[in-house]
């Protein structure tokens, strides 16, 4: 009886985690992807708690749900700026090419 509850909980979390992983990959907009990635990290952390791994869950929550998505956001903001600048320069051919 107790086992059945655990099974349902774990099964549900597993399916949800796999679905969120799919969502992370299919979110092609990198800015939005960071948010989905954070949610995925959170969910994975919860799954780890359910799998009786509190140490790992703590690491996953701090790293996977916070630090890595933050790095992604920071990287995107810089990359976008660089890409926009290059495009602007291409549009104005009078300016030097390289």
């Amino acid at each position, binding site marked *: 009886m107790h*086992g059945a509850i655990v099974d349902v909980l774990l099964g549900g979390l597993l399916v949800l*985690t796999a679905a969120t*992983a799919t969502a992370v990959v299919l979110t092609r907009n*990198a800015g939005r992807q960071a948010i989905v990635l954070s949610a995925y990290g959170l969910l994975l952390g919860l799954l*780890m708690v359910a799998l009786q791994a509190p140490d790992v869950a703590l690491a996953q929550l701090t*790293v996977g749900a916070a630090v890595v998505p933050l790095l992604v956001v920071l990287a995107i903001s810089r990359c976008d700026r*660089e890409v926009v600048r290059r495009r602007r320069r291409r549009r104005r051919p009078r300016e030097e090419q390289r």
Partner: protein
Amino acid sequence: MFAVLPYLAAGWIFLIGCYGLATSRNLVHAVVSLAVVQSSTYLLLLAVGWKRDATAPVFGDISPGAPVVDPIVQALTLTDIVVGATVSALLLALTIQVAKRHGTIDPEEIRSLEQDSGDDDGQ
């Protein structure tokens, strides 16, 4: 089905991450997809070490001798998470530099370096 569900979930996450990598048009997206691939190994490891009706391997509240899940895979996963995050950070740093030097982060626009070296076949 339940006996293999976590393994299949990990396999799915692995392959979907690979799909993201193979079809990505944005290098940041590619690095995130790679992080998804790595996360599948966390799940696989923990699933292998999980034991029914056992608790976390911390003897604060429970007495030594109580059934606990496998601590080895947890230690491995911990290392794996650190390594994964580290690699992601490094690859993102490289992506920023690619954006600066190439002005794009679409892998389609920056193909292999093969063309740079000229296509001379020396004959």
